């Protein structure tokens, strides 16, 4: 190796190390600043109360409305996306397994849908709402978020299911099971952890997104008690509190951001843990 080659290699290796640690340090800074700001202003009151009168001018209350609203919305949307998405993913991998062309076209369409920005779903949901004469509501929010997380759900389940080897399917056929039985028994057992991961991933996306619910879910200071009422969400509550000129309200935005980040971190840790645990019952090839 000549001298200049050595210098070149050293230089690029240094750049690589800098880039890698840049990412890790930025992550640390983000986590640190969220926690540092959030912990200062978080309180039990914030987590357990809905906004009182004058909340947005710094008076008492909390963000319970947004926490519950976000959870309800994300649960609803994840459930709905699962009910629609699971059959699609199974259908792709059981009934269409021999039609490579059809599968690849559908996967391609799904990838396209995955790439569409959430604000577009929001706008689309809004125009549908107006068309049908609906108000902003939990239901409209759920429907919009479902559309938005559906491709994520299907594609991540599909990624898992398509690793189930054809041999396993054939073994099951030869024992006399029909296609639907195979789909539900073999596949779900074989890829349980992957499916859980897909569900939690979609849940995380659903709960964190603001642009899709901006138009459709509305906002309210109450805990909703019906599908047709408007509902507050954490991302929007952060956004609104942050745009307030009152310092106290801004501080609550930091606390709300901490809550939202924690929910998402817990969900993602949970999915990793579950994924590892159920890995053991899986047959390895």
């Amino acid at each position, binding site marked *: 190796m000549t001298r200049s080659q050595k210098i*070149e*290699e050293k230089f690029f290796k240094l750049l690589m190390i800098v880039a890698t640690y840049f990412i890790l340090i930025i992550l640390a*800074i983000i986590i640190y600043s969220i926690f540092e700001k959030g912990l200062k202003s978080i309180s039990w009151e914030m987590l357990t109360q809905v906004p009182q009168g004058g909340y947005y001018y710094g008076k008492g209350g909390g963000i319970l409305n947004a926490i519950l609203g976000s959870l309800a919305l994300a649960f609803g949307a994840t459930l709905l996306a699962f009910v*629609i998405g699971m*059959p699609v993913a199974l259908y792709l991998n059981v009934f269409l397994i021999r039609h490579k062309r059809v599968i690849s076209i559908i996967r391609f369409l799904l990838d396209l849908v995955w790439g569409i920005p959430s604000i577009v779903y929001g706008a689309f949901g809004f125009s549908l709402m107006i068309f049908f004469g609906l108000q902003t509501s939990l239901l409209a929010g759920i429907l919009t978020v479902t559309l938005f997380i559906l491709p994520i759900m299907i594609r991540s389940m599909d990624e898992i299911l398509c690793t189930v080897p054809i041999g396993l399917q054939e073994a099951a056929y030869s024992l006399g099971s029909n296609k639907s039985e195979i789909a539900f028994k073999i596949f779900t057992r074989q890829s349980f952890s992957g499916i859980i991961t897909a569900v939690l991933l979609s849940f995380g996306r659903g709960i964190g997104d603001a642009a899709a619910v*901006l138009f459709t879910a509305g906002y309210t200071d109450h805990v909703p008690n019906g599908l047709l009422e408007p509902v507050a969400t954490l991302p929007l509550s952060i956004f609104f509190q*942050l745009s307030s000129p009152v310092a106290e309200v801004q501080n609550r935005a930091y606390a709300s951001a901490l809550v*939202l*980040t924690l929910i998402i971190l817990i969900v993602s840790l949970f999915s990793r843990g579950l994924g590892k645990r159920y890995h053991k019952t899986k047959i390895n090839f």
Partner: protein
Amino acid sequence: MIISLLLVAFLPFLLFIGLYLKSVLLLHDYSLGDLIFSKVWRPSSGKFGFAPFIIGSIWVTVVSMLITAPICLLTAIYVTQYTKKYFLRIMHPAIDILAGIPSVVYGLWGILVIVPFISRYLGPWLGIQTMGYSILAASFVLSIMIIPFVLNILIEIFRAIPTELKEAALSLGATQWQTIKHVLLRKALPGIIAAFGFGLARAFGETMAVLMVVGNVVRLPKSVFDPGYTLPALIANNYGEMLSIPKYDSALMFAALLLLAVSLFFNLVMHFFIVRYNKY
């Protein structure tokens, strides 16, 4: 099963038709060229020029990709070629967390850290007067958001290259860096371009984080330190009043339609690019 499948498969067309029907009102009165190239945005007097938003979006997207692309490429090479396996086990959760942090939280972080950094340190240091809320702030926040997305694809691409190809180059007497530069990068090139393309499409449509730090001023930005406005921010900021001004709702739906078109276009092009290249 089949109904769900059809619903999902035709979702892009459904979105397209839905948004088109809503924006047809606007397209009826103005030509497409006028809408895209006109710089005057005054909805109350019926002037809908989207140029400031389109150009703002392009600025933010391009600058953020300029930051993201080299960082992701260097990191992907480092973690796949130079480090031991355990390092990837540290990187993966880190990438997952970055990918999981919601857009609003990124925006908040931008307001807390990046905006003051630009207005107090970077701007004065370069002798530029800036509020901090700027194209640069948005690009920077956006670039961090896109990193996990692009990096994941790149790591997969580099891991998919067979070790034997590396061995072939090394056995000819190439150094590790020569192998990376002449063989691995060339082998991965279509994948790298596609990863950047997908990242670009994603950056273009990002809404909340950008909206919170870009400044939201309707004018053509002259430098990265100027505030700007993007298409998604336009939609998100004005949904409240869109029913009170004639054709305003139609204009916002047109903005969504533009976003959808750009996203579909980029993803399509990248997809066919990969398919085409894989044949060889």
